[in-house]
């Protein structure tokens, strides 16, 4: 596997080129000169919300759905979001030509296999956003790409048409059975993996999904790359909000920052069952009680 070198992030003023609905989600297209050109699959951007006098100080982090590094507007990128708070409500009310402060590209992108192996991409909800540029990159390396998308209901799936275009096979699950198989992505993943003899699993979605995907990958001897969705305040590595317990090469568990050490982690290295805690034995953990 090769991990793309960490390139520096920049801060730019982007301009809104478009905002469209996609099921229950919004797709925001922004100019992002200098960011789009550096973006690799799995990178994310952090947006300031509410304008320069905003009472909302914390940046909102979004994985990058697509980038266009050339064109009429120069570098542009697209993000996908659901409105579930004041910050995303602000984004949903943006208009063409509004400006927004963007920092990116941030984080460590997906590691890509050196060999043309069989890969399964698994995503829950709009966690699929980074998967399509990843699929392009994998296919460019000669990898077979199969996709599993899941959501609670049909309108909360994102990118079904993209997936059909790009994947050797697409399997859909919904909790309510409105489309595809009724159930969770992890219900169908083992069969898909066995059918395509998958060697690498790429996943993005909620923590419980990632935990189960990582477990299934380990059971089948596959390598997994999981992009986590952790709450962040800054996105650039200075606030220490977005930590989770990850086992290092030396076997020691450390509280790593999702924003700069992730958001993509090896699935077998994250202590999924201990997310939200400081597990015993973590470097610097309290001997008893909490800090």
């Amino acid at each position: 596997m090769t991990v793309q070198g960490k390139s520096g992030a920049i801060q730019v003023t982007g301009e809104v080129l478009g905002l469209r609905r996609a099921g229950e989600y919004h797709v925001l297209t922004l100019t992002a000169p200098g960011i789009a050109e550096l973006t690799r699959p799995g990178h994310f951007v952090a947006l300031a919300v509410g304008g320069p006098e905003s009472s909302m100080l914390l940046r909102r982090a979004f994985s990058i759905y697509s980038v266009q590094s050339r064109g009429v507007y120069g570098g542009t990128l697209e993000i996908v979001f659901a409105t579930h708070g004041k910050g995303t409500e602000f984004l949903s009310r943006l208009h063409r030509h509004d400006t927004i402060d963007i920092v990116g590209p941030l984080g460590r992108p997906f590691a890509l296999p050196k060999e043309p192996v069989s890969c399964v991409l698994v995503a829950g909800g709009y966690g699929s956003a980074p998967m399509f540029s990843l699929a392009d990159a994998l296919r460019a390396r000669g990898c077979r790409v199969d996709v599993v998308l899941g959501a609670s209901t049909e309108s909360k799936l994102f990118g079904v048409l993209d997936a059909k275009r790009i994947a050797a096979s697409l399997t859909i699950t919904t909790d309510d059975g409105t489309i595809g198989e009724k159930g969770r992505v992890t219900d169908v993943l083992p069969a898909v993996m066995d059918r395509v003899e998958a060697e690498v699993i790429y996943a993005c979605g909620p923590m419980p999904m990632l935990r189960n995907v990582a477990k299934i990958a380990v059971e089948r001897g596959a390598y997994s790359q999981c992009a986590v969705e952790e709450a962040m305040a800054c996105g650039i590595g200075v606030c220490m909000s977005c930590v989770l317990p990850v086992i290092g090469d030396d076997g020691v568990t450390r509280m790593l920052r999702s924003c700069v050490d992730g958001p993509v982690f090896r699935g077998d290295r994250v202590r999924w069952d201990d997310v939200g805690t400081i597990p015993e034995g973590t470097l610097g953990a309290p001997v008893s009680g909490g800090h």
Partner: protein
Amino acid sequence: MTRAVITHGPRPDERDIVPDIDMSTWLAGLELPSPVMTASGCAGYGRELDQFFDIASIGAVVTKSIMLNPRSGRPTPRMAETPSGMLNSIGLQGPGVDTFVERDLEWLRQRGARAVVSIAGGSVDEYTRIASKLRHVSDIAAIEVNISCPNVENRGLVFACDAGAAADVVHAVRRNTNPGIPVLAKLSPDVTDIVTIAKSVVDAGADGLSMINTLLGMVIDPDTMRPSLAGVTGGLSGPAIRPVAVRCVYQVHAAMPDVPIVGMGGIRTGIDALEFVLAGASAVSVGTVIFNDPGAPARITRELAVALAERGFDSFTDAVGFAHRDPSVPASGGPVATHAGDAVADRDDELDAGVEG
């Protein structure tokens, strides 16, 4: 003395030309080329921010508080957004002083940045041991003693909330630190009378004061109906606390005008920084705004220079404590008192930049 003409038009951050003002300042024998520093805990050890501006160009990097040993910090969630602010319960996560000196301080040194090293401990003994380890480390601009972090094991034992305990820590650090390096004590606003605490730590050997640390706060999630933070309570920071911080700086400067103060608490713009300077701060730290705008330290430095020039100051130090001066007595080395009215007009114009004054 010449009075600058207050110009109307673009906001300071949109101006390309930074006025020719002497921005250097002094903190207890330490000369800084710029009065704007980062606030501890909001800038890591400087490396991440160097992507966004030249980290060596600002007054100093105040590093995240370092403890004797590696520290995991608290469980997540560690952060909650609040109106014009945020609550944090990080719990002083860090690599421990040895790794910090070898890796992070060394990076700052090679980068040519000034480092104010923030230290924290759970006991007087821990502060003593950290100070001793730093005693022979070169290239430390100052030590900031964090005696006011609310995210400690025993929240009832914040040193800065007790004059005696605060003095004990500062005395131990001062005695074990290189005498040539200023020791700044970082104070908590969560006290009955901050002047009492300030006098106590100055008597114990603090060369200067950093004010203020966060205020202890709490958020309850209306959906889960439980505290939002894993640590239950956390430190409130951001513009929401700025008036509290300005008040603390003003009160302490009034009581001890010769003690240098680093002012901090919700600074978002150069005008905000100016408030602290007028209240008596010889330097300022910017913290939470960095999460919103990683380029903020450099931007605020430019904005502060513009704000000073607009008010007729030739040098930064002339503005320190200006709010304490008798408005009926014309001051030397600064703008005339009637200028204050123009300054108010300027702020109104910012709200409506289209109106000609």
